[in-house]
């Protein structure tokens, strides 16, 4: 429910995650050396066309993921309109969209478990330190299990505040939310103590 994935299966999922991430690292580094707006535009159009090969639904989903960049586009456009260097502004905007889109292609076409395995490999030297790998795994499980629960509780507090005051809450419901999180922490910790065999 929480993962960022394409709405449909594509053949990109079959490519090993390590290869995709290596290609992404090379592409991202290479893009910084391009200073032609035309080439940057062509590359961006190429990535969009590539996503269109997988169907309209995936393209629509991918374009939706680029929305968070819009406030930055507005800032850069305004800045370069002010300094009079619009070509440079356009180059920066295209570079942002291109790198962001490439990274999204890798994320949306890669299983979370595969990325997690790569990170585990990268972090493997830490096994020789005092870091408790079992505790880290448990943290991840609790986080994934409880984020939807905390979100649901936030919605309930939001509704309760709205019903009683007639206004939309903002910061007022954060304290009760923290208190419920603290209560949950007590209960979950107690359950873990009694049921798990966590090595301390």
């Amino acid at each position, binding site marked *: 429910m*929480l*993962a*960022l*994935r394409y709405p449909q299966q594509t053949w990109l999922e079959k490519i090993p995650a390590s290869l995709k*991430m290596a290609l*992404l690292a090379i592409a*991202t580094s290479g893009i910084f050396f391009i200073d032609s707006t035309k080439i940057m535009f062509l590359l961006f159009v190429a990535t969009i066309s590539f996503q269109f090969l997988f169907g309209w639904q995936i393209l629509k989903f991918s374009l939706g993921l680029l*929305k*968070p*960049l819009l406030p*930055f586009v507005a*800032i*850069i456009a305004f*800045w370069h309109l002010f300094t009079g260097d619009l070509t*440079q502004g356009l*180059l*920066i905007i295209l570079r*942002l969209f291109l*790198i*962001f*889109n490439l*990274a*999204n292609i*890798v*994320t*949306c076409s890669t299983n*979370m478990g595969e*990325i*997690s395995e790569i*990170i585990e490999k990268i972090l493997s030297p830490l096994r020789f330190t005092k870091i408790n790998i079992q*505790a880290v795994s*448990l*943290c*991840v499980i*609790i*986080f*994934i299990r*409880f*984020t939807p*629960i*905390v*979100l649901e509780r*936030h919605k309930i507090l939001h509704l309760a505040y709205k019903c009683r005051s007639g206004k*939309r809450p*903002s*910061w007022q419901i*954060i304290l009760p*939310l*923290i*208190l419920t*999180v*603290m209560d*949950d*922490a007590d209960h*979950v*910790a107690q359950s*873990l*103590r009694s049921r*798990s065999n*966590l090595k301390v």
Partner: protein
Amino acid sequence: MEKKIVLVSLFAALIAVLGLAPKVMLASGVPITAQSMGIMLCGTVLGAQRGALAVLLFITLTALGLPLLSGGRGGLGVFASPSVGFIVGFPLAAFVAGWITSKLKLINVFYSSLLGAIIGGILILYIPGIVGMSIMLDKSISEAALIALIYLPGDCIKAFLCAMLTHTLFKLRPENVLSRI
């Protein structure tokens, strides 16, 4: 140990939820979310180490592809966006906020957490944030600092709210404000 693990995980979940909550618009038209206040709260409530660990867990899982950053952002793309410096600086911000709150035990918790939130959550966070913006937007450090200034009023409000929340929590349940124990 169990309580520590659970608190770190649940506060990471709290940061995620605060980012998904509706935005508040400032008079300048800049939207602010409570997510960076969640970072400050991790430090001021959980303390330096636990706070930084909670933030680190949140960022790692966001990088793995969970769309938990404000605006539903997630995946490796966020490390290619202009806010990369802020995201990378989040654990350090929580650590400094927690360290200051825990070191200033002799003064009122409101003031110690306010100072922690301002120094950690604003001053320290803005250093990698501005450097990241400067690289990604191809601007000089001073130009990037000027762009980052639009977030300052919102962050000051968040630091104040963070101090107020930590103070109230300390009055209600002092045993839960681990940075002061």
